[in-house]
């Protein structure tokens, strides 16, 4: 009887499953920051409508996103860890990469700033001051500790500061996404490194309940560029490479770049369009990729953003 009831229920439910099966599904392996900031939710209706697609994403850290993509379990990769991205391309897993947008990282911490990083000359110096205050028991630092892009940058800054904070009493590894890490930092009144997007979104959602502030920002080390990577269709024949290319085109087109620029959280812009602007923001040239994508855009009847038109 119970079995019959569950069976009936299951059949009823399975036939009323509203998921459209006719639309082509795109699976983006991406980092928590593009999801937590709400950007992908914002872009989805525009992309879905233009290409009659169903855009979905896997909410992962950059490390896991790259691992999942390299097994062929996603159609396209949107992450922010240049070294791992280059390694991914070098191993033949990906065919094209372009920096599509950027924002920056900020160091946040308790308002009373026990490590006095407000006046630090750079991110490396700020980290040194946090370590010093940590050693004398005045503060804590919460790390993502999840092999994500943010975590990778954090480790890079620690090593530039000549420090290995792991397994120190004042250093905690959350092993979670950016939002969770920020919330843990707030509870512990600790410092942490966050991308601006997630910080602004979480701050607007939690307000005063989040007892942290931006204490250091603006250093060039803290630049956070996001790379979009097309997977190698020869290596991964089962992925939806056609729709993945459409997503790439959408992101580097005038429309996509404008949408990224117009996205606001609590009135603040959190992502800046970067296609064709690599050198302007201090990154290595991407001239070859930019030329390739301009060609593909015009072949697909799409417009490039105005700032790359003149090339």
């Amino acid at each position: 009887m119970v079995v019959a009831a569950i069976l009936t229920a299951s059949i009823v439910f399975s036939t009323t499953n509203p998921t459209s099966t006719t639309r082509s599904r795109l699976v983006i392996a991406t980092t928590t920051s593009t999801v937590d900031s709400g950007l992908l939710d914002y872009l989805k209706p525009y992309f879905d409508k233009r290409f009659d697609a169903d855009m979905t994403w896997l909410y992962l850290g950059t490390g896991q996103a790259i691992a999942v993509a390299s097994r062929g379990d996603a159609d396209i990769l949107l992450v922010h860890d240049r070294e791992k991205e280059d390694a991914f391309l070098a191993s033949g897993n990906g065919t094209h990469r372009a920096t599509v947008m950027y924002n920056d990282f900020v160091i946040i911490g308790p308002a009373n700033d026990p490590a006095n990083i407000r006046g630090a000359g750079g991110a490396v110096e700020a980290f040194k001051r946090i370590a010093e205050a940590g050693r004398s028991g005045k503060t804590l630092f919460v790390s993502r500790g999840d092999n994500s892009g943010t975590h990778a940058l954090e480790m890079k800054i620690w090593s530039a500061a000549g420090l290995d904070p792991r397994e120190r009493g004042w250093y905690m590894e959350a092993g979670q996404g950016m939002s969770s890490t920020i919330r843990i930092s707030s509870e512990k009144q600790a410092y942490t490194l966050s991308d601006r997007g997630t910080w602004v979104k979480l701050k607007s959602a939690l307000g005063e309940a989040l007892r942290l502030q931006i204490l250091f920002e603006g250093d060039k080390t803290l630049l956070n560029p996001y790379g979009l990577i097309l997977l190698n269709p020869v290596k991964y024949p089962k992925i939806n490479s056609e729709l993945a290319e459409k997503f790439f085109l959408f992101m580097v087109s005038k429309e996509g770049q404008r949408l990224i620029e117009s996205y606001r959280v609590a009135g603040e812009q959190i992502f800046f369009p970067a296609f064709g602007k690599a050198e302007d923001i201090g990154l290595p040239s991407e001239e070859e990729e930019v030329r390739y994508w301009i060609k593909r855009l015009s072949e697909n009847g799409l417009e490039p953003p105005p700032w790359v038109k003149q090339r």
Partner: protein
Amino acid sequence: MGKAEVEKKGGANHLAGWEEVFYGLVKAVELIFSGDPDVVQITILSLRVSGLATLIGGALGIPLGALVALRTFRGKTLVVSVINTLMGLPPVLVGLVYYILLSSTGPLGFLRLLYTPEAMILAQLTMVLPIAAGVTISSVSTIDPKLREVAVSLGANPLQETAILLWEARVGLLTALVVGFGAAISEVGAIMIVGGNLLGYTRALTTAIVLLTNQGEFVEAIALGIILLTLAFLVNAILTLLQMRSRSSLFAQIYTREPRLKW
């Protein structure tokens, strides 16, 4: 009521502590009665995945449990211990193993099951199966051995004997399904990994709660949690009702009434 407070986009009103739980409750009622399509879809997916996982896991686990309980064989204690251990299978481990197996470059990659509701069902039924088997073993084992003797002495063949014992243990078997369903519907570790929490496709109540919590949308997260609890309560209430009805034991009938058995 409270809509302005619940709507947090403006960032004007922020909630703390019990207020969030309260507005979560308000929001849950609102979501249930407004029939928000996303919430309806997520709820249906959870019910479909966990319902089918319980059904299939039960259909395999209950006979397995009965077999183990009623037969005497070498290594029976070991088998029972293994089943009991597997009753506490960590969902995240199940998820990881299925991810590796179903990954497109994995041994079962050709099935194209990763990030589908079917993969979620597979992972959950793997957890339900040992629970169903374990609870069946313990409830069949506690039946008075006299019933078996009576049945055999009255000429029951092995199949009839098994049927009688399972009927006698039916309250326990219902419990197996209740416990299995409870474990499945509340589980997040496995379906997050093999389902991928894809919007409109594999997003279930528990995985949506994780995402909303990470995004700081606590009121919505609590609301989905309340829907989840309500579902679990309803399923349990139905099964408990069935259990109460079937309490009048066959064994008791044999001893208290005249023997009216047909075989």
